[in-house]
């Protein structure tokens, strides 16, 4: 009896403390839980729901099943946009990774003025993308105005149309995007290179392994997690490209003739120029699906390591 009482007496304040702590926890989490529910999860579900409706903001949304998807997949415009988006991704990602790895690999060996050189490469990353898009747009202008064409002209090469050509506009915009993201990738690659233990390199050198073999047999395999992260990060960046395209083609967004239009610009125009909210929501679901697949691919690659 007495024994029972003392345990209860001893336990009472402990339980009390535990409930009090739980109260603190949920007091801390109350606003965040509300935020994530209302500003993240509800809109996600809403986007799926809207993608099955026909809605122009004027009349109430009408359920139309898969019609938005059917129309989207039947439209040549969508497939052009789809091709453009993947052109940014499939050409842009390898080029930017190759460039940034090369810079990081050699910059890592430089001691003199290291921080200064690094700053030069990193600087574009922190600039405002929409502002720098206008600088690049100016660079790409025809001869007397545009810097690039003037330099080409001085070298005896005829003018390039860059942003006015359906062939060259997309690569021209892609260069701007690669330029803007390069600094970030260089820094991440350098962090990855630093995390490889020096002893591996020393052991390899003692065994007389050459630089090229060290790069292929030690550096690249050990750098795989970093590389996978950057491939995914950069792919997602190119899939969501918007600021550069919008600002470099304001007179005909996504032009000429839709040759530079990425998915996000199409979503923007469908939703906020044509006010076809349902069709735009269906396009965002496509974007979401692609991003999800890429993320899953990343998990799968890193698991198989």
């Amino acid at each position, binding site marked *: 009896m007495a024994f029972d009482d003392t345990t209860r007496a001893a336990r009472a304040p402990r339980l009390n403390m535990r409930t009090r702590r739980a109260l603190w926890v949920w007091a801390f989490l109350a606003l*965040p839980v509300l935020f994530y529910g209302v500003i993240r999860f509800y809109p996600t579900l809403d986007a799926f729901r809207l993608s099955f409706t026909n809605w122009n903001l004027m009349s109430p949304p009408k359920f139309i099943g898969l019609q938005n998807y059917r129309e989207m997949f039947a439209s040549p415009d969508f497939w052009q946009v789809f091709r453009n988006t993947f052109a940014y991704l499939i050409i842009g990602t390898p080029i930017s990774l190759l460039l940034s790895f090369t810079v990081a690999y050699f910059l890592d060996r430089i001691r003199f003025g290291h921080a200064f050189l690094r700053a030069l490469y990193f600087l574009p990353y922190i600039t*405002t993308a929409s502002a720098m898009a206008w600088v690049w747009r100016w660079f790409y202008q025809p001869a007397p105005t545009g810097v690039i064409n003037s330099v080409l002209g001085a070298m005896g090469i005829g003018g390039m149309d860059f942003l006015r050509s359906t062939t060259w506009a997309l690569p021209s915009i892609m260069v701007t995007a690669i330029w803007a993201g390069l600094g970030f990738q260089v820094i991440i690659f350098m962090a990855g290179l630093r995390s490889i233990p020096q002893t591996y390199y020393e052991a390899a050198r003692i065994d007389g392994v050459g630089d090229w073999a060290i790069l292929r047999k030690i550096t690249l395999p050990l750098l795989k997690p970093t590389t996978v992260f950057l491939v995914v990060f950069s792919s997602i960046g190119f899939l969501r490209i918007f600021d550069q395209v919008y600002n470099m083609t304001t007179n005909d967004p996504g032009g000429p003739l839709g040759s530079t239009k990425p998915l996000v610009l199409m979503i923007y125009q469908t939703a906020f120029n044509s006010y076809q909210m349902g069709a735009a929501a269906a396009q965002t*679901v496509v974007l979401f699906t692609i991003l999800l697949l890429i993320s899953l691919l990343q998990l799968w690659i890193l698991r198989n390591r």
Partner: protein
Amino acid sequence: MAAADTTPATAGLPMPKIRPARILLWTVLFIGGLLMITPILFMFSTSLKTAGQIYDLRLIPQSPTFSNYVKVLSEGDFFRWFLNSSLVAICVTLSNCFFDSLVGYTLAKFRFRGRQFVFIAILSTLMIPTEMLVIPWYLMASDFGWLDTYWGIMFPGMMTAFGTFLMKQFFETVPDDFIEAARIDGLNEFTIWWRIAMPLVTPALSALAIFTFLGNWTAFFWPLISITSSELYTLPVGLTSFAVEQSIQWEMIMTGAALATIPTLIVFLLLQRYIVRGVMLAGLKG
């Protein structure tokens, strides 16, 4: 370092401190770096030229003038947009520093029912692209009358899963003993977080602050959608409308672009070390 220096010495070789290959490598990297900042240099250079001089592509203007800046600042709404961007970026940054830390701390340092669920739920929002949410946000904002207001620009970014995850990682390194000791001293849980735990994670907090600030300062997509009146434009959106109006007056456009870029450059020059370290932290944790 010491090992590298002694090896050639013991081998009886002269110490080739500066090798030609190194100088070549340095020069190539330096030229590459100069190419990287060429657009930025030309932007500033042209912003200091008059309309008649812009076809002269010399990097250093012959007679530099600030008249474009005076004109853009007095005619355009740049000063207003600058304040708008600052207000939005500062408010969102403060909110993220507060809430992301609070949630990160709670998830790292409390054991409670539902903890794993809350963590996974927040983390899973990383998978959802902003572009998917803008349509529902737009409808929500229009229902609540938030369109074309500061709050309308800010509300979607008040908390982020990325920041929460980053802060959680760092709060996990704070020893539990510190927190227990503070509890015995009778401090309440909020004070323990704010006074004891927060000062121990300032590197992560400053990285989060810098990222959130720069991210919101340069944000374009959502402000473009949610704001329609020119007085409420943020700097990037304002710049776009200004540049479209200027058409081919490139010296004016470059001046506007320079005005939009200068604040980020100042932040970078002042906080370079923290930014680079922050990118490494965030990149490796993310």
